[in-house]
């Protein structure tokens, strides 16, 4: 299977995401979170936050779109029909609260072949409006060969 090693290091254009209070609630409900800091504005303010806090995995919401669009980059020649999300990692920095503006830059970090499978690694680095890092995501995909 051909592997686009010449595209390793490619960086995608920064993507800005404005974090909305109702989006945090929607996400928290969708994954079953019951922590009042994610759902109850008064509870979040009493705890000293300016607005609702985003759960850690909300990183998927602000950093996911640039990853999903990169999968369709023709230069990466991804066979979407045989694509599997193999593994995922996040490291978190500053907390994200509603009202934050998060900028994410995605990089195509690695591409290799093993046993007829293509392994790709993408890395997202997300910072808030103060330049503080809020998360680093590692997105690992596997492309199976035909047949």
């Amino acid at each position: 299977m051909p592997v686009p090693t010449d595209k390793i290091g490619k960086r995608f254009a920064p993507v800005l995401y404005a974090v909305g209070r109702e989006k945090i609630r929607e996400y928290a409900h969708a994954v079953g979170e019951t922590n009042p800091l994610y759902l109850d504005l008064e509870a979040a303010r009493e705890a000293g936050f300016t607005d609702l806090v985003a759960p850690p995995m909300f990183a998927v919401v602000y950093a996911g779109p640039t990853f999903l669009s990169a999968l369709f980059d023709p230069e990466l020649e991804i066979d979407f029909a045989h694509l599997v999300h193999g593994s995922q990692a996040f490291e978190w920095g500053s907390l994200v609260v509603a009202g934050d503006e998060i900028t994410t830059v995605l990089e195509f970090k690695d591409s290799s072949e093993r046993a007829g499978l293509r392994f790709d690694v993408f890395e997202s680095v997300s910072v808030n409006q103060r330049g503080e890092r809020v998360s680093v995501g590692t997105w690992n995909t596997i492309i199976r060969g035909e047949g």
Partner: protein
Amino acid sequence: MALAEGDSIALSVTPDPYVTVRYAGASGDFNPIHIDEQFAQSVGLPGRILHGLWSMAQVARAVGEASGGDPAALRSLSAQFRGMGRLGEEIVVTGTVSTVADGLASVKLDAVQGSAKLVKGAVAEVRVG
């Protein structure tokens, strides 16, 4: 409530039939294998399957609840996706604190549905104290 070496973590959740629709809207991942029964079957799946990142969010939730609800406690989480998650069947997340050092607990977790491991060998780093 601080995590200590050897502590165990557990969380059970049964995904309802529309959770993938709500998660697609919440996350922006509208891959039809998660929301369209006919499409999922047309590509050889038994039916709609859960988003892997939804299952990972259950692991994160288990750690968060075990950390007393401090949203800043979880410092990192890595997860490998394995079996396909089905709707309507209970998922059990279990974890064990393997080490605590320098204010960080390392927790190993799995998310299992029936005989399928949906998330295997997840590792969470959690701030304690």
